[in-house]
């Protein structure tokens, strides 16, 4: 690996760590606000895995995916900007995007983008239209289903070169 590639991987690792910490903070905030010693894991303590709490889970996921997408966007602006300095350096860093670990990361990122987009559109719809609680939950199911289908299809395309 070249020095520039090491810097890129280090920056990406730091950002991913930041996203994980932020997600943990979001989850912890939900626990602190509703302090409880309820039995079960911390996952259970945020909300039950039931349809009643499904929108609460969507809120946590929306925040985490939003920060993840924003963090990667920041890094991506810098690595694309390398082209203005030197096309060779740009190529050097962008070689990493073709490696297997980066392709897996891209798949996860794509899932995050898709969920954030579809759930965001759902929230806009809730804001501008009269939508019942049951319909709002159904819309979330649709958003998750669309994320799963589109994300899986994109992952096949992204991973195909390394799997083959």
């Amino acid at each position, binding site marked *: 690996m070249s020095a520039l590639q090491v810097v890129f991987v280090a920056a990406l690792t730091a950002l991913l760590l930041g996203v994980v910490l932020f997600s943990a903070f979001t989850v912890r905030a939900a626990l602190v606000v509703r302090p409880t010693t*309820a039995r079960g894991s911390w996952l259970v303590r945020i909300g039950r895995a039931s349809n009643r709490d499904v929108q*609460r889970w969507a*809120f946590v996921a929306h925040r985490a995916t939003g920060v993840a997408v924003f963090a990667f966007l920041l890094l991506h602006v810098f690595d694309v900007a390398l082209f203005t300095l030197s096309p060779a350096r740009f190529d050097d860093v962008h070689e990493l995007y073709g490696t297997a670990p980066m392709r897996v990361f891209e798949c996860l990122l794509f899932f995050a983008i898709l969920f954030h987009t579809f759930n965001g559109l759902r929230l806009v719809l809730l804001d*501008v239209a009269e939508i019942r609680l049951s319909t709002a939950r159904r819309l979330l199911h649709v958003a998750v289903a669309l994320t799963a289908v589109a994300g899986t299809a994109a992952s096949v395309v992204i991973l195909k070169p390394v799997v083959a």
Partner: protein
Amino acid sequence: MTALAVEIERSDSEARRHFTVEVGEPTMVLDVLLALQRTDASLAFRYSCRVAMCGTCTIRVDGRPVLACRTPVLLGADGLLLEPLAGLPVVRDLIVDTTPFSTAWRSVEPWFTPRADAEPRVLAADDPSREAIESGLDCISCGACWTACDLAGAEHRFLGPAALNRAMTLAADARDGARDRRLRLVSQEGGVTRCHYIHGCSGACPKGIDPAASIRRLRRWSIGAGR
């Protein structure tokens, strides 16, 4: 009858926390509390109507805010954890001080102020505004939504789902003479713009109300009124 282990969050750290009670089918959580109070008279909790009308007996059962009088105990469960509502100061054991909740409730002027020239004086059964009004009218001010809301529990500047839901039911009524003032009140800091779409309130409401939808509706009206 089945033996059920019950753990209760007590305000006095020295007080007994673990109990065992014999329960049959059906048994409500309030029945369990009443049975336990016979073995430990120092156990403090509130209740009144026993039919989900007054909202007095709201506590957290296994972390979830519920009405103790209408929450059945599941036989075969490995135990029951009872805690006071979160986001409100504990007075004793399962009793909380609801002043922050009541203060927010009062601040939206939750009473009907009739317009002198209101016509018609009675809304027809098929009046379109009835749908909005009746969707939030079942609120019993139990505080479950307050506990389930991450914002209302954390910072008392937020009016909370119940107060905003009440404001919506009044503002939806064309005969309400205080609509403009009410919309101004809920548009201020701590009003409708503080809702973050967490939907904890709608998931917790024991009466099946969707306070989050009421807040969104109120927000649309506030924007429409240029607030």
